[in-house]
């Protein structure tokens, strides 16, 4: 095991190992400090690959780590890093460090346990983005729910317990179906190849009967779609986002939703090229409905946090459309947009949290004329709002444009419809900006501008918004290779329209028949 594998292992396990001392320290201050140091270390660690090893190995990965874990079931502890997971890992490290910073003053109650949960969460999210063994992936995917349940239920506001349980039950149910599909695929592969394994690369070569494949992909899709979330299984999201503490909302919106989209890109489509092609109309439909429906509801929200939550569903609708179109351009757009949404929406949640800390309300009507009172804060708020609505030159524009261009290649009319959805986004976000920042002041209450700590949180976010907007290549560069590798097998199936494997390998089909009927 070389130094590169060591970095992978450290990315995943350093937070959870550090979480134990965090839980044991008596003072909240020490806990915060340790958490900050660890998350900063993780961020530095996640940036190392960008600088040092961007040369992919022959199999496309930058780094691989394979350790035997449960040989009786063919389960390996396998991690892999490629451009896509590298971006997600860096985003994870970045947002977790911000989460510690935004909670600095906001979380005073049971602070050690809060940071314990944050660090455990970081391990799980990293694990999800880096696993290449389906069992391991599922394990991290599932454990992820536990710290989030506590973050919402213990440190949230409003109907926090209700929201926490709703979040847990929704996502737990979805992922249990995925578990069944994972086992199903494992059994089919085992009966074909004679070797039982959960390794992603091996399972990709499984020949699944078309009818079985439809079921398996559907189960995977439900598991991922609940997290994304896709209309109509999104109803946990507004509650969870609204009632979570700011750090929880940032992680939910910035990372948890991305795990769903990432799962589709990494596992869902590549594992079931044929079945996923059959479901594309459905996925496109739920994607476009999500774009419009969530935007429409966002317009009606009075609670700023709820508004941003619904905007997440709408934005993720674009990501889903980009995934469903499944060509190099749209997929690059989706991955880029996953990062962008994490940055922009994370920033919006942080800003709403800051407003909430000052005014103890998130009601839009309670604000007004903020610009004259706190110009610094307002300027940042406006920047993130226009970034979110896709102003050219800022980050979201680049991602949405790529998605729409890629979509247009495959489904021009749908692309046109999705494009019109951007207008909807414009309406509710501009309404937010106009009501909160401009117009007559709603109250005469004292209003502080940004503190140095808050500025330190917002400045890096703003820099990223502008830099990615002006030069998206820094993010697209690393993902080009992996996306090319992902697109070609699925695209081949899509264009052929038939099952090429069945024609070339009748013996394999026969084996599958035996496996299919116990």
């Amino acid at each position, binding site marked *: 095991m070389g130094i590169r594998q060591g970095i992978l292992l450290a990315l995943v396990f350093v937070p959870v190992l550090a979480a134990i001392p965090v839980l044991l320290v008596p003072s909240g201050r020490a806990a915060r400090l340790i958490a900050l140091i660890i998350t900063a270390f993780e961020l530095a660690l996640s940036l190392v690959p960008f600088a040092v090893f961007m040369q992919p190995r022959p199999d496309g990965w930058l780094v691989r780590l394979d350790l035997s*874990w*449960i*040989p*009786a*079931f063919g389960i390996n502890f396998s991690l892999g890093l490629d451009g896509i997971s590298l971006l997600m890992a860096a985003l994870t490290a970045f947002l977790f460090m911000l989460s510690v910073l935004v909670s600095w003053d906001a979380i005073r109650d049971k602070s050690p346990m809060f940071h314990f949960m944050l660090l455990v969460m970081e391990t799980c999210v990293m694990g999800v983005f880096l696993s290449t063994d389906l069992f391991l992936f*599922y*394990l991290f995917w*599932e*454990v992820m*729910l*536990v710290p989030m*349940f*506590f973050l919402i*239920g*213990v440190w949230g506001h409003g109907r*926090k*317990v209700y929201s*926490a*349980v709703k979040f*847990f*039950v929704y996502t*737990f*149910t979805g992922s*249990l*179906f995925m*578990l*069944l599909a994972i*086992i*199903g695929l*494992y*059994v089919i592969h*085992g009966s074909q190849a004679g070797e039982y394994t959960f390794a992603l690369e091996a399972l990709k070569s499984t020949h699944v009967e078309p009818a079985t494949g439809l079921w398996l992909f559907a189960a995977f899709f439900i598991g991922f779609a609940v997290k994304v979330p896709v209309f109509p299984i999104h109803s946990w999201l507004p509650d969870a986002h609204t009632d979570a503490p700011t750090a929880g909302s940032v992680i939910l919106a910035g990372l948890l939703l991305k795990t769903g989209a990432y799962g589709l890109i990494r596992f869902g489509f590549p594992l079931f090229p044929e079945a996923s092609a059959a479901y594309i109309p459905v996925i496109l439909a739920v994607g476009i409905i999500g774009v419009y429906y969530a935007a429409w509801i966002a317009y009606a929200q009075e609670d700023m946090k709820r508004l941003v939550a619904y905007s997440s569903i709408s934005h993720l609708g674009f990501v889903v459309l980009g995934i469903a179109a499944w060509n190099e351009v749209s997929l690059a757009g989706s991955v880029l947009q996953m990062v962008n949404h994490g940055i922009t929406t994370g920033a919006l949640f942080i800003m709403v949290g800051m407003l909430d800390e000052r005014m103890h309300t998130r009601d839009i009507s309670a604000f007004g004329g903020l610009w004259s009172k706190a110009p610094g804060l307002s300027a940042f708020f406006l920047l993130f709002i226009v970034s979110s609505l896709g102003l050219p030159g800022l980050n979201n524009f680049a991602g949405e444009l790529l998605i729409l261009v890629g979509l247009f290649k495959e489904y021009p009319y749908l692309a046109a419809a999705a494009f019109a959805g951007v207008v909807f986004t414009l309406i509710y976000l501009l309404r937010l900006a106009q009501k909160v920042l401009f117009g007559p002041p709603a109250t005469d209450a004292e209003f502080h501008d940004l503190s140095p700590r808050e500025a330190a949180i917002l400045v890096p976010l703003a820099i990223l918004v502008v830099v990615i907007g002006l030069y998206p290549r820094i993010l697209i560069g690393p993902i080009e290779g992996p996306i090319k590798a992902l697109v070609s097998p699925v695209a081949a199936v899509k264009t052929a329209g038939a099952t090429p494997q069945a024609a070339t390998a009748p013996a394999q089909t026969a084996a599958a028949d035996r496996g299919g*009927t*116990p």
Partner: protein
Amino acid sequence: MPSFSMDNMVSILPEMIVLSLALAVLMFDLALPKDEKRYLAYFSVAGLAIAGYQTMNLAGLQLDTFYGMFVLDGYAIFFKVLFYIAAAIAILISIGYVKGQEMDKGEYYALILFATAGMMVMASGADLISIYLGLELMALSVYILAGFMRGSMKSNEAALKYFLLGAFSSGILLYGIAIIYGVTGTTNLAGIAAFIQSGQYSGPALTLAMILLVAGFGFKVAAVPFHMWVPDVYEGAPTSVTAFMSVGPKAAGFAAFLRVFTTALPGIQPDWTVIIASLAIMSMLIGNVVAISQTNIKRMLAYSSIAHAGYAMVGFVSGGMQGVSSVMMYLFIYMFMNLGAFGMVVMLRKDGVAGEELKDFAGLAKKNRTAALLMMVFMFSLAGIPPTAGFMGKFYVFMAAIDAGFTWLAIIGVMMSAVSAYFYLRVIMYMYMKEPEGEFELAAPLSLKLAMAVAVLGVLYIGMAPAGLIDFARISIAGMM
């Protein structure tokens, strides 16, 4: 047929050790003053450890003794190890509790040991008669234990209910055994299998006998529709006894159930598969759904115990090496997590009385972080959330089911797991997200702490490194399959 030899003595060595231990406990009880009964508990645990050591020394042997009545094989050894650990943890949980409940008598520990010996005979029985003997020894001991809190009406009611229904179910089981004897002319498991294999009989009596056996064993493992006694008995019996009862006799019931059906009745497997599959579905459904509405934590765990019997039966139905070893692993894991959960109920006292209501757990995290953390681990494990052992157990059972083509059973199991997450989570919710009311008092003597440490380590270790247990289960049944 093997002749009588020294092998006979070797094969029952573990049982002899445990029975002598029980008798020694009874004798020492006379010599010990009233307040010093806890030494009997330590003595019993030490004796169980010796028995465990001796049993592990016998691993690898395959002895068919007492004219085919009794076997010592890997399968029996696996379950015996399970019973030792279950009995030892249950005894450690009991020490403080029996004192508090004024049931601090030496017989208590002797009865647990007698029950353990009975369970061991059940796991080793290769003849319906020896299995029945073991079952009765176990059942009679546990009936008394259930009513050990003599001053409590609830405990008396539980014991009587358990005894009446238990006697009835034993009768049904005997009736089944009698019919099998009538049809096949033998009660030996291998003999029955050989008779069925020969195809000399194809009438309905065998199916009838099989159904009666299912009813008899189904009662012991607490499967629906033979579960009516479970909530009342679990609630009424002293909590430490409930803890033991929910894992030991259940595992013993499964040990005998599995051995009888896979070695004696493989010839009519399609028939019993249907029946056990429907029992599994009903148990998972009723257990999990009814648990949602419970406010008493012992009753909730009772329904959860019914549901877990259902999950184990999913593995049972799947059959084969995978299926049987998945049930064994499931029971092993269930032992740790359920003893842990009941141990926490034993520990918690509220305003001077035993805290058995769900709301008694409110705000526990504020008062005692460690206790809340432990209970959380056990609840997550029962719900089947990684990285706890409960997840590995369910994973293996569902994998065996899908592998054997019972995907629909796995789907129902998974859906019911999602339902169960709600009521396990509710305990956690009470502990961490509600304000405490009243005075907490954690009755945690060192022995109980030790027991909880063992349970939580078991749950976490198996959850993260299950390879050893899987191999143990698989090697154990290599000779039987």
